[in-house]
């Protein structure tokens, strides 16, 4: 039997990680909710499985998304992941074909050359050896980039790279040592036996000219085995856990599982799938505008994995969602952050056990609430019946030009509407949600829902994207919720409002909650194209910036918010537009304070462009009044 003591560290590591993976998978599966278990089962026998295999190949091995964002960084990830995969795959095949027998123990494939030093001299063996060297060279080129990135992150085109904890560093060093030690071990062995291909062969024969190759090979085979073993054993408690976990993530996501608002298996799998690639750090305005570089999603994921106190990190975020859309792994970063903001709740409290190899939910008894409402003082509201409701929201009340423009537009459109919070209303609930106070938010939601039901309306128009998002996502209403830009677009399409073309150069800022938050990108731009010369900016649609006025961050100072706002406004007004248009009262307020350019909400621009209300409206009014008189 082919055996040598140096393979023991590798074997221990390998079998440890295999057993660990099985145990962890079972725990994860057990913790899934019943519907999610069913989803996973259905996914396993359905198309989701095939899709996942494809995605695993494209994303986990090739790293297509990172390649698209940043070629060098993508190449680094690809060469390590795909290269290693190829090395294992073809190594196993090599051992199977050329080994003494078929179906070998894994170590025989990994240390093939040690056990078959005479192999690879001629013919097909040599071609195969050339191919194996090529793969090794491919990995080493990526490793070279990885090492350079650690010392100088700009090498791979990044402004910042992630910082590491001690175990991460040990794992990192062992990972770095794996391939160079394999190279040297194979080279010395080849050098001693006068074979090997272009890489191991030439390096080996050159080394053999001044070193005793036969004696040097053995320590490197030990080093190779040791670094592999160390890496495997540390893997579950370091960021390299993302390598196996991402496979689960892809499969779960394709089966239709979502993060939701409680922590559980899926959010844990997501947290462990983060490779700390650092793309979220580069995307974050807190980084490039105010130089805060310790709260980005990669750090949040790491802190959750380490079970550190994350409340400072979790709350120091604009919740703009820029990182969500840039994450190459597709982790739902903002929902996970929201879970952490609600971390006081027992169902979201986890702690690490067994040195961090496993996690357990804190067994804290649910606090009994006395059931009394925090908002008992709110008066009952009985709105008048209408088809369309207009909910301005707090922020629109603080920017009365938007409010007045919307009244003008609604009047002109001829719809039967009711301005439900004209005399001041109740908050939509989102600021409380962003602060992690869901129960209080729910009370406000219930209050507003009752009012909306009573009005009998079929459409609800909001001026504020913050309200819009929460009405759409967290209210259970059977009314159609529209942002006013969508409403205006519809009125234009129907011909209900007529406008003059304003000969003005306009640049549009997509508000976070309207764009990335709710997926409304086109309607605002369509409306603007209808009335003005809409110019493009560098930060369009998904790539739009946060204005800095976010309600989501209560950790940074007003000066820092203002810096973010100034930088964003400067970017947007580079082409010297006449108007910086937005569709959010908060963005408007924030930008107005920091730029000389006129800042206006789309509704203001539309109201400005509107012609005198057409005759139609007066006729309609008269018809209505006749109807009323006749009691129809």
């Amino acid at each position, binding site marked *: 039997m082919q055996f040598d003591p140096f393979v023991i560290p590798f074997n221990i590591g390998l079998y440890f990680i295999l057993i660990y993976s099985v145990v962890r998978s079972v725990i994860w599966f057990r913790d899934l909710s019943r519907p999610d278990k069913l989803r996973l089962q259905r996914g396993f026998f359905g198309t989701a499985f095939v899709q996942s295999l494809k995605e695993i190949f494209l994303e986990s091995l090739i790293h297509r998304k990172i390649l698209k964002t940043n070629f060098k960084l993508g190449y680094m990830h690809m060469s390590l992941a795909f290269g290693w995969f190829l090395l294992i795959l073809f190594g196993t095949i090599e051992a199977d074909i050329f080994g003494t027998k078929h179906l070998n123990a894994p170590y025989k494939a990994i240390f093939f050359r040690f056990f078959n030093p005479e192999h690879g001299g001629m013919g097909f063996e040599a071609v195969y050896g050339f191919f194996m060297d090529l793969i090794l060279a491919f990995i080493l080129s990526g490793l070279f980039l990885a090492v350079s990135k650690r010392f100088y992150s700009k090498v791979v085109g990044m402004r910042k790279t992630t910082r590491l904890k001690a175990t991460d560093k040990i794992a990192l060093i062992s990972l770095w040592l794996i391939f160079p030690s394999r190279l040297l071990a194979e080279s010395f062995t080849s050098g001693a036996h006068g074979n090997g291909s272009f890489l191991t062969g030439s390096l080996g024969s050159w080394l053999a000219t001044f070193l005793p190759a036969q004696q040097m090979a053995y320590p490197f085979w030990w080093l190779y085995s040791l670094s592999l073993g160390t890496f495997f054993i540390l893997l579950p408690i370091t960021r390299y856990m993302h390598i196996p976990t991402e496979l689960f993530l892809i499969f779960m996501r394709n089966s239709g599982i979502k993060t939701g608002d409680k922590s559980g298996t899926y959010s844990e799998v997501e947290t462990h799938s983060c490779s700390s690639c650092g793309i979220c750090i580069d995307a974050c305005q807190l980084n490039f505008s105010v130089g805060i570089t310790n709260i980005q999603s990669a750090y949040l994921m790491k802190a959750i994995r380490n079970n550190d106190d994350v409340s400072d990190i979790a709350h120091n975020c604009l919740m703009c969602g820029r990182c969500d859309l840039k994450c190459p792994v597709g982790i739902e970063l903002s929902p996970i952050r929201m879970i952490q903001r609600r971390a006081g709740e027992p169902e979201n409290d986890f702690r690490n056990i067994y040195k961090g190899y496993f996690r357990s939910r804190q067994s804290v008894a649910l606090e009994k609430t006395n059931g009394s409402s925090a908002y008992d003082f709110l008066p009952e509201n009985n709105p008048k019946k209408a088809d369309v409701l207009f909910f301005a929201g707090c922020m629109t*009340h*603080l*920017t*009365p*030009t938007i*409010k*007045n423009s919307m009244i003008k537009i609604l009047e002109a459109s001829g719809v039967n509407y009711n301005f439900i919070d004209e*005399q*001041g209303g109740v908050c939509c609930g989102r600021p409380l949600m962003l602060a992690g106070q869901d129960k209080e938010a729910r009370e406000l939601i219930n209050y507003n829902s009752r009012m909306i039901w009573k009005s009998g309306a079929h459409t609800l128009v909001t001026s504020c994207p913050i309200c819009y998002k929460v009405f759409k996502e967290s209210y259970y209403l059977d009314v159609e919720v529209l942002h006013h830009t969508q409403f205006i677009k519809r009125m234009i399409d129907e011909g209900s409002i007529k406008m003059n073309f304003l000969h003005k150069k306009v640049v549009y800022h997509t508000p976070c909650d309207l764009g990335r938050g709710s997926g409304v990108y086109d309607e605002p731009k369509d409306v603007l194209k209808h009335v003005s010369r809409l110019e493009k900016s560098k930060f369009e649609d998904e790539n739009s910036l946060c204005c800095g006025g976010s309600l989501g961050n209560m950790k940074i100072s*007003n000066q820092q918010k*203002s810096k973010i706002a100034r930088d964003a406004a400067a970017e947007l007004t580079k082409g010297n537009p006449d108007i910086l248009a937005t569709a959010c009262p908060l963005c408007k*307020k924030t930008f*107005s*304070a920091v730029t000389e350019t006129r800042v206006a909400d789309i509704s203001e621009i539309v109201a400005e462009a509107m012609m005198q209300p057409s005759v139609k409206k007066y006729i309609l009014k008269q018809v209505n009044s006749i109807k009323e008189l006749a009691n129809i």
Partner: protein
Amino acid sequence: MSKQVIVIGGGVAGLEAAGQLSKAGIEVSLIEKENKTGGHLNDWYKLFPDRRNSSEVKEYLDGITHHDGIKLLTNTTIEKFNSNKSHFSIITNEGKELTADAVVVATGFDLFKSARKEEYGYGIYDNVITSTDLEEMFRKGKIVLSNGNVPKTIGIVHCVGSRDEKVGNLYCSKLCCVTAVKQAIELREHLPESKVFCFYMDMRMGGAFYEELYREAQEKWGVNFIRGKVSEAGEAIDNKLIIKVEDTLAGRPLKMEVDLLVLMAGMEMSEGGKKISKMCGLNTGENRFFAVADHHYGSNRSNIKGVFYAGTCTAPMNITETISHARAAVSEVMDYLKNVRK
């Protein structure tokens, strides 16, 4: 040959400095960007705390600046500033070159532009006015709403653009509280039937006779003081204004209808001052006013030798303080001119 000094700004500080310098035998060039001197004094009708007519102070200032040694240049701005050790030269917008041995910067303040607080509706609702608009009404002796009616309920908002992190002004403008008290009394005098409500964060009655005036406003004139900052103003159908405010003493939110809302706009570094600070390389502080060399004993000195500050271009001040500060600047200038080596 007598020494020459350029005074930039023909408001209270500039006039006082020019007057005192000429008295001491200095040749003064007084530069004013408007067509007449007096600055903000021209916008005010009566002054706190004794409610004397502002024209009396103006008369005094005109009196001391009516001097052969003062060359007054109105409608003049500065285009270029050169300094060569102890020698300064200025090129005006008309291309004229002025030279001097020292410069006194008295560029004063600008009132906070109230439209920046959009939630108060200045420029959007007709019956939202600022403290200066109200002074204009007092001068005309006619306090009416946009529709010509007489207001019955009047709200006064303190701290508009002062002590407000959101507009970037952390400092207190010092004078708006007492202006509000003075204007509240005047409103009650003019309109005995009216009710006046002042919404304040803190009452800062730090000057001589301010506290007495505050007491008089409450006891004699029945002005209501409500502690709490107005959050927003809206307009009802009948042109009345609805304001929302939290009464922080009673601890409850308050919604109230008023006919007229008066905003006590705070003081900010003037636009002209900002321009000059850039042109001359004069340092400004975090509050954007000119940064003085020493807060205790050098509040007239700048970071450039031979350039001195007078008045509200360094911080909010009332007229009394402004005049004292201008006189102190003159004393610094004289001291400097005596010791400077040519």
